[in-house]
């Protein structure tokens, strides 16, 4: 595949994975937790490097999953003893992220891992970081990592679809029915952490939040059915990635930045033009009512 093809594939995989996971964050009103985990996984990555002394994807994923779930756990813990949940997120997220930054500045000099790279990502390097087994070129490592995480996410969602759905809509009922709501919560947090770290290299910690939240928020405006929302969200993710890449090529600007901008533009258009929830259709419906009553 061409250099450009790999970049588009990587971006699309980020769009699909983030889009799907993001839907559940929006429905569970936990968008801020995405912001938190996208930052604290930095600690997971640095920690994984310090322990394993390598920058292999597997260690990164494990480190990120551990710290991601720890983040969710600490937030839950503070909340359960009476700290407001947004304050709990703020405290946990900044503290763990700061530890990551300190560790990085202490030991990061020796490795190819720096704060700017972690925050902004660099998708243009991805096609050069190839996975080779027995001298056979299997394509970029990032594509393999993103593909694995996407398949894992899809399997989890298919297996636990109804449990995730009811514990998002009506957690009390779910508990009464004997569904392990806390387990489902941590399962989703695990998915979020893995998705975040796999997307990290391509879009970075700040823009991964855009890819997590904006496609889901757009899909929410377009449908009243959860399964359709998940598919639309993935589609918006892919569109943002592809449109973002070409915007970046045309104007010679940051690719990850352009992807987030593209996602924002798609959201804005949907917000105005959505046939059911859009500003325009609601305005027209109001006008029609006024005309009728007049």
């Amino acid at each position, binding site marked *: 595949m061409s250099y450009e093809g790999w970049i588009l594939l990587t971006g699309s995989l980020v769009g699909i994975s983030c889009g799907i996971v993001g839907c559940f964050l929006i*429905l569970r*009103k936990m968008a801020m937790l995405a912001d938190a985990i996208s930052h604290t996984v930095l600690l997971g990555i640095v920690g994984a490097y310090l322990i394993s002394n390598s920058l292999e994807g597997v260690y990164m994923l494990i480190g990120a999953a551990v710290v991601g779930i720890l983040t969710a756990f600490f937030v839950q813990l503070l909340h359960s003893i*009476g700290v407001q949940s947004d304050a709990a997120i703020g405290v946990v997220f900044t503290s763990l992220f700061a530890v990551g930054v300190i560790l990085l500045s202490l030991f990061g000099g020796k490795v190819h891992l720096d704060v700017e790279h972690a925050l902004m990502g660099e998708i243009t390097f991805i096609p050069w970081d190839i996975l080779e087994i027995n001298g056979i070129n299997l394509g970029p490592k990032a594509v393999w990592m993103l593909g694995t995480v996407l398949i894992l996410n899809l399997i989890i969602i298919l*297996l636990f*679809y*109804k*449990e995730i*759905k*009811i514990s*998002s*809509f*009506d957690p*009390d*009922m*779910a*508990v*009464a*029915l*004997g*569904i392990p709501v806390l387990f489902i919560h941590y399962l989703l947090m695990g998915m979020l952490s893995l998705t975040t770290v796999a997307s990290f290299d391509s879009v970075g910690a700040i823009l991964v939040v855009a890819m997590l939240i904006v496609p889901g928020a757009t899909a*929410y405006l377009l*449908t*009243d*059915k*959860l399964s*359709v*929302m998940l598919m639309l969200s993935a589609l918006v993710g892919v569109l943002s990635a592809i449109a973002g890449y070409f915007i970046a090529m045309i104007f010679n600007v940051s690719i990850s930045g352009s992807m987030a901008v593209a996602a924002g533009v798609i959201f804005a258009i949907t917000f105005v033009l959505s046939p059911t929830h859009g500003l325009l259709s609601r305005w027209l419906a109001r006008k029609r009512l006024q005309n009728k009553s007049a």
Partner: protein
Amino acid sequence: MNPVTVENVTVAYHSKPVLQEVSFSVPEGKLIGIIGPNGAGKSTLIKAVLGLVPRASGDVYIYGKPYKQQRKLVGYVPQRGSVDWDFPTNALDVVLMGRYGHIGWFKRPSKKDVEFAMSCLEKVGMKEYANRQISQLSGGQQQRVFLARALAQDATVYFMDEPFVGVDAATEKAIISLLNELKAQGKTVLVVHHDLQTVKEYFDWVLLLNMRKIAIGPTEETFTLENLQKTYGGRLTFLHQQHAIVNQQ
């Protein structure tokens, strides 16, 4: 055997007690109203039975066994305001959630589950709204969907948290006739209820609650001015109205 037995249940939020040493049991096949002022712990009592809030102490039995072993016997109608009605789903889907406890892990609702859920929607007069997005239903219709979901649980004991709040008169009538139908089938229904005026009309039994159990028993013996005074304490102006209600009936 008693459908519900509660023994010495105490619940506290942040060390502030909400329920203190509540004990009672209820007979089979009755409509039981749980009555008490705001903050009396009525909802908390239901939630403590269903394991939704942790009990500081005490035990709960459904037909002689702990709730965890008897989940399939119990149906639940939470307060309508406890969920986000903008969730992307339709009425039928919500009712199907009542089947989840029967379906088991990794499986999808079967055709039979869907048919059963439809029949439950029909019982509450909501069949034609099956595919309606839930945010487009009125308050009364949403309450009926919750009720249909409890019916879909196919339970023997039902706990309902304020099903009459914010519903129109037609829905209130529909709900009460449904409750009577459940009773006729030998099922036991416990209902958290606010409106003292309708207590005598709706319920066979009442449980009067204000952090502690004040009284429990058949409505005509238990729903007395004396017990109401004990339950509602020094709220005098309020009590005058109660006095009128009790005398009136």
